[in-house]
Each structure stands twice: as C-alpha cells, then as structure tokens.
C-alpha cells in the first residue's frame, strides 16, 4: 500500500523565518494535497498539485510537486504565528476512485515563536 512520509516531524522557527516541509511517497502520486490542521480542529485544504513540476502559491505558502522523485515540498516565507499548526500531505493512491484510497502523511507540527 502507498505510504507518505513527512519531514521534519516537528519544527520550531522564529517569526519571520522561512521553512520547508517535505512529503515523500513510496509509490506513484496521482495528485498531492496539502492540508493544515490547527490543534484539535478539522483539516483546512490548502492546495492540490497534479502534474510534475507544478507549483502553486497561496499567500506566503508555496507548494511544488516533483513527480519523478514522488515528492512534494511546502515552503512558507516569512513565517507568522498564524502559520502554526500541523501540516499534512495527502495523496490519491489510485487514479480512478471516489477518494476511498486517499492516504495521509503523519503530519509536521509547526510552531512559530513571536
């Protein structure tokens, strides 16, 4: 079965610093999704990447997909305390399904110190 690994497991940065979170898949990616979860709450959809080399940005968060490496990175520029939370990557394990084969990474816990 497909597995997603994330690194680092946790991250503490000073406000204003840049940071990168990585997500690596053990198998072919059919769409890579990034979510953010505030402690004890639901997941907030950030962005979806489908094609190799694709890059998307939302405010100060940029995600890239390297299809050959089966890897995605999430980069936050000039981090703020509002960026704190758990970042999870998710992926479709198969190209044609209702989403029942969706898998999630274990998450990266980000703390931003003011």
């Amino acid at each position: 079965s497909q597995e997603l690994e994330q690194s680092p497991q946790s991250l503490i940065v000073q406000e204003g610093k840049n940071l990168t979170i990585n997500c690596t898949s053990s198998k072919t990616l059919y769409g890579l999704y990034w979510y953010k979860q505030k402690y004890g709450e639901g997941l907030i959809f950030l962005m979806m990447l489908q094609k190799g080399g694709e890059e998307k940005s939302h405010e100060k968060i940029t995600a890239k997909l390297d299809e050959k490496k089966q890897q995605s990175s999430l980069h936050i520029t000039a981090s703020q305390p509002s960026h704190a939370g758990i970042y999870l990557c998710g992926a479709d394990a198969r190209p044609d399904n209702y989403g029942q084969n969706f898998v999630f990474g274990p998450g990266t816990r980000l703390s931003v110190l003011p």
Partner: protein
Amino acid sequence: DVKVTQSSRYLVKRTGEKVFLECVQDMDHENMFWYRQDPGLGLRLIYFSYDVKMKEKGDIPEGYSVSREKKERFSLILESASTNQTSMYLCASSLGRTQYFGPGTRLTVT
C-alpha cells in the same frame, strides 16, 4: 465556500451507549467520508459514501455503521461504544478528489 459541519465538537459517552455523529455539507457533494484520527496512527478511513444510500467500508469499519438518507447528511453510528473508540472523528465531503473537512468531534468513551 465549502462548508462541512459536525453536530458536536466534544462528546462524552459511556461504554455500551449508542452514539450518533452527524455530518452535513452544503455543497451538493456526491462523496462523503468518516475518518478517525489518533496519535501515532494518523487519519484512518472508517466508511465512505458515494451517493445517497450507498456506502462502502473503509480501512477500519468494525464497530461502526453509517447512514446516508439524504445527499447532504452522513451519519456515523457507534452501535455500542467502547473505550477504544475514544478518538477525534473527522467528516469530509468531495465532488472531485479534493476532500473538505468538518471541524471534528472529539469523542470520549468512559
């Protein structure tokens, strides 16, 4: 904006009780999902539904059942709650492949 709501944010139930967790989405999505999230185990799919009255088991359906009588509502039922069902329960809906999540229900079974 997509909105997925869950009936309770926090719930405390006793062992053996029947528990209903409700999820409602307002975007006319075809697919709905129930997950549980536990430390060290991540998110695991319990059940999903791809249409009204249609349901399929996910990875960990034991001890749970679901009901989807209307498109917008997907209910998770714990027939006889047990302490090992203490967890964070997350509902999601999707039209394509992007899943949108509700705020979660933290269930404690004592």
